[in-house]
């Protein structure tokens, strides 16, 4: 098992982050792995972690009764799985399934929330990292909704 501090500092999502914050994050971090087909999280369960993907691909899926799940998007190496932990009610809004072998750093957000409450600098840094992610995903969803590859006549 490698040092979480090195893994955190080297992850794209935390690129350029203050080493002191890495120290704090590392206290809430552990390395995890998932086999292909295994679920990282399930819709509706408490969002008590987020994952920094180091290797592999994860599909975010929406369960539909009587039909195949709908793949909303795939998350790749260098990206983050899990934003539901940021806002109440802190429950996963989709399933996350490993499409192949996945290695990741899991951050325990109960641990992180406690530290953020007592260290506003940490909380602000996390906000600066997660807010662009929300905007990026919102824009992507808008583009998907537009169905730009639909038909328009000659």
């Amino acid at each position: 098992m490698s040092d979480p501090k090195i893994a955190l500092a080297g992850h794209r999502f935390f690129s350029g982050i203050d080493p002191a914050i890495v120290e704090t994050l590392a206290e809430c971090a552990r390395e995890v792995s998932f086999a292909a087909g295994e679920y990282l999280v399930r819709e509706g369960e408490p969002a008590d972690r987020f994952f920094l993907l180091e290797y592999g691909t994860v599909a975010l899926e929406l369960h539909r009764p009587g039909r195949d799940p709908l793949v909303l998007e795939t998350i790749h190496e260098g990206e983050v799985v899990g934003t539901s932990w940021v806002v109440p009610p802190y429950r996963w809004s989709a399933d996350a399934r490993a499409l192949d072998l996945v290695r990741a750093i899991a951050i325990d957000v109960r641990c992180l929330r406690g530290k953020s409450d007592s260290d506003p600098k940490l909380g602000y840094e996390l906000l600066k990292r997660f807010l662009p992610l929300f905007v990026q995903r919102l824009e992507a969803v808008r583009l998907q909704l537009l169905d730009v590859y639909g038909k328009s006549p000659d």
Partner: protein
Amino acid sequence: MRDPDPFVPRLFRVEEARRENADTTTLGLVPSHGEIPSFLPGQFFMLYAFGVAEIPVSVSGLSGTGRLLHTIRAVGAGSRALCRLRPGDFLGARGPYGSAWPLDRAEGDDLLLIAGGLGAAPIRSALLRALAERERYGRVVFLYGARGPTELLFRPELEGWQRRPDLEVQVTVDHAPPSWRGSVGVVPERIGHARFSPAHTTAFVCGPEVMMRFTASALLAAGVSSERIFLSMERNMKCALALCGRCQFGPAFVCREGPIFRYDRIARLLFLREI
């Protein structure tokens, strides 16, 4: 002797009609007389389904046997009629027209080719040329987005490209069933995952205009210069000779100055309404 009437199409024979997906067909054409007209990647022909309609279609390449390839999606009367053609049938063709992908200008750069939907057809002709002259470029990256896995074009070829060590290919779809093993998401998001040196990259983008706007923004955010981003614009081209004005795009006619435009020269127009 008078010049031939530029509105009169040449007769071409369909030698090949390959179904790409449920509504898109690639036609392999040869002229009934004379040589295959030379063209540059990115240029288009006006294809005439006799008695139905004439529509602009970009060249998607030249086959190994020298057929002129056009990939057509059946969306209206003209395109549906063209997609119904079978080997041995005839159509009319005028061209080539318009500007080309600036492959010479991109020499020495990393080459980022980004396609959405049917935009893969004009991008394919640039990609084939780049692969034929692979030593002229740094990294060559092909990012391709489609609505779903069953709507991907050029699938056998795509698999071959994905195996090439000198080409990075990323395919993504907007929606997919759980059996799909590839990426789900929009094309602009893939730019951050591609390997290229932004300061030394030329990008060619072709797809629906909204997709190109988002893609150009993502390229700029990644550090690619607006002078090195080229878009293939689509407007309602009719005469293809800059006479009828149907394809006017600000001060330009897409059929003559386009369809390939440098981004910094049209960026303002992309955000103007009613153009």
